[in-house]
């Protein structure tokens, strides 16, 4: 994992960052910093899904050098905040796993559509595999995009009439318009 190249913000080595602040102004600033950190961390590491059980052990929420970690309750509070601003979507009802949209599905959709235009793929059918792992996608940001997020992105495109999803389980694909 690319953890080493990630540049942690100053807050990450500041012990109070890992304690829920009772002062509401302070808490607002603290949460702002956490939300940035969570989105940046997923972006740099190209991660799309956050698993709560794994998250507790992940360096994102626990800094071993200062021996502090964020408790589960606070993690949920911050994720709730992110959900409100549209950057998080729960996958299961038990709230164990969630998508972290450091780009919204609409933004992903636009990137993919631009790419399709550039590569003259309009009015043709692509497999989902081609989009995220094909040769043409080698230098694109959406290379390796998680399939759930990809489908959400394409669904967003479909809503604007720019794509049609073909959800045949053996041969998932999309047609761009």
């Amino acid at each position, binding site marked *: 994992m690319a953890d080493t190249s990630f540049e942690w913000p100053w807050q990450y080595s500041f012990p*109070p960052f890992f304690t829920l602040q009772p002062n509401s102004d302070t808490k607002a600033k*603290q949460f702002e*910093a956490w939300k940035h950190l969570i989105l940046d961390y997923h972006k740099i590491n190209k991660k799309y899904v956050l698993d709560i059980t794994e998250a507790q052990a992940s360096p994102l929420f626990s800094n071993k050098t200062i021996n502090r970690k964020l408790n589960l309750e606070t993690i949920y509070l911050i994720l709730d905040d992110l959900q409100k601003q549209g950057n998080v979507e729960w996958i299961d009802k038990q709230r164990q796993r969630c998508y972290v949209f450091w780009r919204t599905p609409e933004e992903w959709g636009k990137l993919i559509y631009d790419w399709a235009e550039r590569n003259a793929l309009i009015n043709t059918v692509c497999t989902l595999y081609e989009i995220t792992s094909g040769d043409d996608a080698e230098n694109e940001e959406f290379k390796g995009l998680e399939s759930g997020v990809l489908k959400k992105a394409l669904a967003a495109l479909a809503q604007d009439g720019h794509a049609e999803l073909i959800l045949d389980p053996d041969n998932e694909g999309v047609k761009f318009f």
Partner: protein
Amino acid sequence: DKNEATGETISEAFEDLKALMKMAKEMVNLSKMVSQKLKEKQSDITEDETIQFKSYLLSLGISDPVTKEEFGSGSAFHTELAKQLSVALMKPLQEAGGILSLTEVYCRVNRARGVELISPEDLLNACLMLDKLKLPIQLHQFDSGVMVLRLESYDTASEALKAVDILSEKGSLTADELSIISKATVVIAKERLLYLEKEGIVCRDDSIEGLRFYPNRFISE
């Protein structure tokens, strides 16, 4: 024989005690009736009468807060005690930096008295009078419920800000550490830190190592 005699004395004493309790019970009933009457004809009764009635109640040890608070805010005894406290506590308060918790005050007062001790309730009631009597010492209750006596000249904000200097020198502080450096008690040191937190000047780090306070870099950076 000796045992028998002791036993007799004891049972005699208990008999007396029973009689005494019966008398006291009558007094309680009587006082309840009187306070009921007082309530019925409020206007006819002068302030002095209720005060006198209150001191009767006090000597019995019956508390009747509802009617007591309605007629005259405290007793003459508490007023006198308040005056005495403000004289006696002047010096200890100055030595302690202008603030003492009520439990500390209680210890100091009763140790000094030796006999005729006061009850915690008496102390509290006397302290509740301080403000009204315009005495130079005031009772204050923190959000946490801790009660303290403060000199009139005591300034919470400026005292708390002194802790900020210590904090920036040390990097972070627990209530214990602050209490040692500033020579205040732990309770008061903690209240100071909580005050600073409420003002957004410090923030907390709650871990297994304890509750530490740091300068609030969330706001300042």
